[in-house]
């Protein structure tokens, strides 16, 4: 009795596994590319961390020509203004640092600062700016008066009575890197999936081996799912390395491990399927890499990587909800930090993401079957 007749599902299972195995073996023969497709997403992650390390606080030198109490309080106000990285130095050294490009501003507290302030007289505070670009320059132009106001509010509370009283939603601040790295993980998974699966799919057309698949009496679903499984396994290497980097190197510990693993898997399926779709459509491996990078980067930026997408432009916020990276980032922020970054709950976000995964897998299978039916394989 033929087991394949009794259990047709079993024959499909064999096709899934064989096809996946075939793709894994083919990828392993192109070791350079395989290593690269693992390294590129991690490279991406580390580079954007460099981006995150770029401070928003202006490196500034303070020259205290007066070391009196008011001058010291003013220095303290500058230090607590969240706007500067302060170096206290001499005038000559400050100029040298400016020339070397290590600071962008010099604030000089004049020698008679304390006496002028005590007597209620006007004080001219010289600020030299290396106004390379208007963005940080305007930040400094706002921040110095802010520090001055803060100085007055602390030193003369009966003169400057209006003060900001802050209440935070979360008991502790989360560093920018710790926040961003979670969003980066999503796009790294996307990039890895697109590269690996896209390359596998395109290779079939380039090498002409697609004919072998198309002429096989296996269902298109079986073929495409097999390809997805193969790329998934290879892509999971990249995901594992990323988790190790994020958790152990950067030190961001997930609050919900079960959520993390479940949604890593779901995201990988989604983007591996998308990669298979892209590879089926473009059919050239040479185009897969630039297309994957070119697609991942803008999508990452509009998907709420730096903060909730709803806080940005409303049109962009509406558009971004039509793609899976948005939900992936929201779920990951919840899994790592217990943050809610969307107006829907993590459960609903997960459900929507699962829907995307199913949809993209379906479309990729349809694209492959269209390829067979259209007879355009040469």
């Amino acid at each position, binding site marked *: 009795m033929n087991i394949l007749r009794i259990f047709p599902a079993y024959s499909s299972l064999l096709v899934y596994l064989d096809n996946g195995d075939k793709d894994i073996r083919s990828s392993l023969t192109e070791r*350079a*590319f395989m290593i690269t497709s693992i390294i590129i997403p991690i*490279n991406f992650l580390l*580079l954007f961390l*460099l*981006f*995150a390390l770029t*401070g928003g606080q*202006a490196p500034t030198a303070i020259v205290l020509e007066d070391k009196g109490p008011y001058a010291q309080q003013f220095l303290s106000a500058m230090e607590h*203004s*969240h706007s500067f990285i302060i170096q206290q130095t001499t005038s000559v050294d400050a100029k040298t640092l400016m020339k070397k490009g290590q600071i*962008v501003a010099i604030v000089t507290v004049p020698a008679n600062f304390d006496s*002028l302030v005590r007597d209620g007289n*006007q*004080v001219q505070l010289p*600020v030299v*700016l290396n*106004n*390379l*670009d208007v*963005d*940080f*320059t305007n930040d400094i132009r*706002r*921040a110095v*008066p*802010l520090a*001055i*106001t803060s100085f*007055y509010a602390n030193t003369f509370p009966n003169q400057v*009575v*209006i*003060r*900001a009283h*802050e*209440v*935070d*939603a*979360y008991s502790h*601040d*989360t*560093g*920018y890197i*710790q*926040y*961003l790295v979670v969003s980066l993980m999503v796009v790294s998974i996307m990039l890895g999936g697109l590269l690996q699966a896209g390359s596998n799919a395109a290779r079939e057309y380039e090498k002409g081996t697609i004919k072998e698949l198309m002429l096989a009496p296996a269902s298109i679903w079986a073929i495409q799912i097999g390809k997805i499984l193969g790329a998934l396994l290879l892509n999971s290497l990249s995901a594992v390395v990323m988790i190790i980097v994020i958790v152990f190197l950067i030190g961001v510990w997930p609050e919900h491990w079960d959520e993390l693993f479940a949604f890593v898997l779901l995201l990988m399926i989604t983007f591996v399927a998308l990669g298979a779709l892209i590879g089926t459509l473009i059919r050239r*491996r*040479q185009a897969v*890499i*630039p297309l994957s990078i070119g697609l991942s*980067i*803008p999508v990452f*930026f*509009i998907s709420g990587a730096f*903060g*909730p997408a*709803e806080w940005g432009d409303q049109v*962009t916020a509406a558009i971004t909800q039509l793609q899976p990276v948005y939900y992936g980032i929201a779920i990951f*922020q919840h899994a790592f930090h217990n943050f809610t970054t*969307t107006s829907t709950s993590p459960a609903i976000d997960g459900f929507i993401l699962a829907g995307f995964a199913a949809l993209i897998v379906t479309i990729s299978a349809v694209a492959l079957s269209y390829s067979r039916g259209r007879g355009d394989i040469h």
Partner: protein
Amino acid sequence: MNSLFPILAIVRKDISVWLRQPTSIAATVLPAIAFMVILYFGAQAVGRNPVALVVQDSGPHAQELVNILTDSGAFKVGMITITPQKAEEAFKQVKVAAVITIPSNFDAAYNALKPDPVTIHINNLNLDFTNDLRRSLPAAITEFYAKKGSSSPIQIHVKETDLRSQDIDLLRFELVPNLVLLLTTAGIVNAGLATAREWEDSTIKELLLAPISRATLITGKLLSGWITTLLIASVVLVVGAASGYLRPEGAIYWISTSAIIMLIALASAGLGVAIGAASRRFQRVTAIGIPLSIDLFFLSGGITVAAFLPAWLQTIAHFVPTFYGTHALQTAIFYGSTEGLALDLSVLGATAFVAGVFGVLSLRKSIMT
């Protein structure tokens, strides 16, 4: 003279093939375009988070503060209400990043010179925008007092001196490192692909069996990589100059800009030839070339002014040749200055030389085998 025509034939051939390969051209320009998109969205995202205002005092000082907050560039006021519950609901729904509450006794406290707190409830998801919000309310308060003029209790005034004659818009400022990224990617990827293609398409035999010296062949490949890179650069420069975004002012700065671009292009083409000859496969060239270009871009502080990088990264940046290219171009184009040009040109010249040598050695080795 005997070698010149074959060299030119190789250059002509490579350029003709390149022009007929839209995917190669796309591979070259896509990273730079992607980063411009990043910068655009990044610039939009900075400091424009939505906040809700709860205004419980209708007095003139409260209204003055409301006007200042509404006009603030630090955030956008998405809601003004007198009911805190509505604002807090929006806060819970993650529709706003913060709720600022001006209390009902704001004017009275201000007039009586009593402590007059304005509360800001912040969704402190991450330090980046949290700090922006933390600064935003004190900045509004500063502006409130500044508007009081001579009656303001604040007597310290800033006397600003700018080193540069003009402020440069962030996006425009970032065009230069993006141009450098484009040159790097174009050189490495185009020259790399043009070299790898000879092996991948087996056309290397046509060149190897031609009665030309190996030096002619190598020179031709290097030159074609350089010229295709310069072609891309010239398109960007022409568009940039015509639009005014990237226009050096003065002949000397045009010359220095051109020299810098030529050196960067030569360095990246040399590196591309080296990679193409060593790998002999398209896929490896793009897999190595694009991430390498992006790495160089980031490590040279391409996304910001060098001073804002952590100290260790600033040190690394000084060893990355593209750092000098970016500095030289920004100084020439935006500030009409030759400050540091000698050092920049020396580093770029040395890099071009070394990269060229790598390209020659790698191609020679591949030809011999």
